[in-house]
């Protein structure tokens, strides 16, 4: 059996682990576009902060690839897939034959069309190690940095560089920070917290036009900058799947088993659009845990096992200048705002299930208990709801459930 995996990040690593749990012999080849060992992308902001280094960013050791007999081709791009011949053609002319193929092509920064943007020489994105290092090497004490995007990527970038430069300004069309993951009140807390640390926000505004060192906002405000970081969002890398005639929408369409519209081609991670468990529709969930779980599921099925990932939900754990945020699921149904010392907690209940939570600060403590309630669709009338709202405790579950959790292997 020949397994080929396009993409050398979390999804393909999980896929390797799952394949090898079943098939010790088949050949595994991973094709990675970046000339780095597999590293965890969310760590790039921690790298700039000095909280990790390139060695520690490596997701799996060299020994892992030896033990699992994996060939990794680094710094080479997969150009096309011939599904008839079952081959992947690389840009260097090499052709690889596969029995089972994984597409884990990831996502790319979305660059909005802005007049004058191409004239900005010091322009960066913030998704890859190379870009993070390029940004770092351009930072000066006197730099004025403008970040376009107050989402997860933009704010992590801001956190990473604020102590190294003169100023960091953040512009976003949305009226509040982290619009896609927080509600109004939590957004406000985060913005206030970040402003106290020196970040400047221009929200509900956007860059109308750029000159090499100035941004003219829609509102008429002019912001001078030395470096510009574009962090407005990511888009799944679907080109190779699209050209191969696979079903795609925003992402490469997959089912619960990680299968694409071709039985021998699987996909996992940021490039995919798969079933989300709460709305039951396919969505793009470009998040690390999701990439791992999708890659693992695909790997099991590629090797002839049976796996179904039917618990995909959005989940974010994010720390910003000492403030911890945890969000899970969807914000629909009835909302329960729970008073909280040193934090903020809002839970969302629909059809006797917890479907979402927004937790800031101390409210995030033991929050995996909420996540599990969401993922496992725990019937809320089976537990002490008032208690679980107050604090995520196993105490709130029925005694028989606790016995299972603590009295036997799980």
């Amino acid at each position, binding site marked *: 059996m020949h397994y080929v995996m396009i993409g050398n990040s979390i999804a393909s690593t*999980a896929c390797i682990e799952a394949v090898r749990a079943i098939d010790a012999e088949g050949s595994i080849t991973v094709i990675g576009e970046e000339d780095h060992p597999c590293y*965890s992308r*969310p*760590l790039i902001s*921690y790298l700039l902060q000095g*909280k*990790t280094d390139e060695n*520690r*960013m*490596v*997701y*799996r050791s060299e020994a892992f690839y030896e033990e699992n007999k994996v060939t990794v081709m680094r710094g080479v791009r997969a150009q096309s897939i011939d599904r008839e011949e079952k081959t992947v053609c690389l840009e260097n002319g090499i052709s690889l034959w596969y029995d089972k193929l994984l597409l884990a092509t990831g996502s790319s920064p979305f660059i909005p069309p802005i007049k004058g943007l191409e004239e900005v020489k010091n322009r960066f994105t913030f998704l890859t190690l190379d870009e993070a290092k390029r940004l770092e090497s351009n930072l000066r004490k006197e730099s004025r940095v403008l970040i376009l995007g107050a989402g997860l990527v933009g704010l992590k970038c801001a956190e990473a560089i604020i102590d190294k430069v003169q100023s960091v300004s953040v512009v976003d069309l949305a009226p509040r920070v982290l619009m896609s993951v927080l509600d109004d009140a939590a957004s406000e807390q985060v913005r206030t917290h970040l402003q106290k640390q020196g970040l400047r926000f221009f929200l509900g505004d956007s860059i109308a036009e750029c000159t090499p060192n100035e941004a003219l906002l829609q509102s008429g405000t002019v912001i001078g900058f030395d470096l510009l970081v574009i962090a407005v969002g990511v888009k799944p890398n679907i080109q190779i799947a699209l050209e191969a005639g696979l079903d795609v929408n925003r992402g490469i369409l997959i089912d619960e088993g990680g299968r694409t519209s071709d039985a021998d081609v699987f996909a996992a991670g940021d490039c995919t659009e798969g079933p989300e468990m709460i709305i039951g529709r396919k969505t793009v969930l470009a998040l*690390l*845990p999701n990439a*791992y*779980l999708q890659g*693992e599921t695909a790997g099991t099925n590629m090797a002839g096992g049976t796996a179904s990932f039917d618990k995909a939900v959005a*989940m*974010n*754990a*994010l*720390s910003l200048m000492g403030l*911890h945020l*945890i969000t*899970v699921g969807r914000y629909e149904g009835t909302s329960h705002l729970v008073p909280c010392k040193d934090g903020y907690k809002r839970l969302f209940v629909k059809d006797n299930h917890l479907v979402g939570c927004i937790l800031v600060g101390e409210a*995030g*403590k*033991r*929050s*995996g*208990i909420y*996540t*599990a309630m969401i993922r*496992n669709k725990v019937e809320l009338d089976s537990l002490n709801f008032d*208690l679980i709202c107050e604090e*995520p*405790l*196993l*105490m709130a579950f029925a*005694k028989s459930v*606790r016995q299972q*959790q*603590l*009295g*036997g*292997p*799980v």
Partner: protein
Amino acid sequence: MKRIYVNEMWCLGCHLCEYYCAYANSGIQDMVKALKDKQIQARITVEQRGTISFAVNCRHCTEPLCIKSCIAGAITSKDGVIVIDQSRCVLCYSCIMACPYGALMPAREGVMQKCELCTTNSQGQPACIQGCPNKAIVFEER
């Protein structure tokens, strides 16, 4: 493999397991020096309400979502024992978000900590068991 199991029937709510855990992982030889006047940071937590109490620590489960969610690749399974390499941890709280038992918490050093069944300290066997006066916590194969 041998794991820690808890029987809430026998738990007295004395919290001694927490003290033994904190001592075992303090790296300090003298128990008094390790614990006296200190805000202890145990890797086992006693939940207590009314007459019910029980200890919770890592279940070393077969579907370790902490490993799969860790952005730093810091959490691994060593023959079934889930351990954390604190030198790699960046304190992002992804594991807290993921663990269905609420069994990971920040350590004093600004990294996460979790029960490693006392395999990574000098105890030999889980200290919480030794500290439990009523055998509400046991370490065995089930």
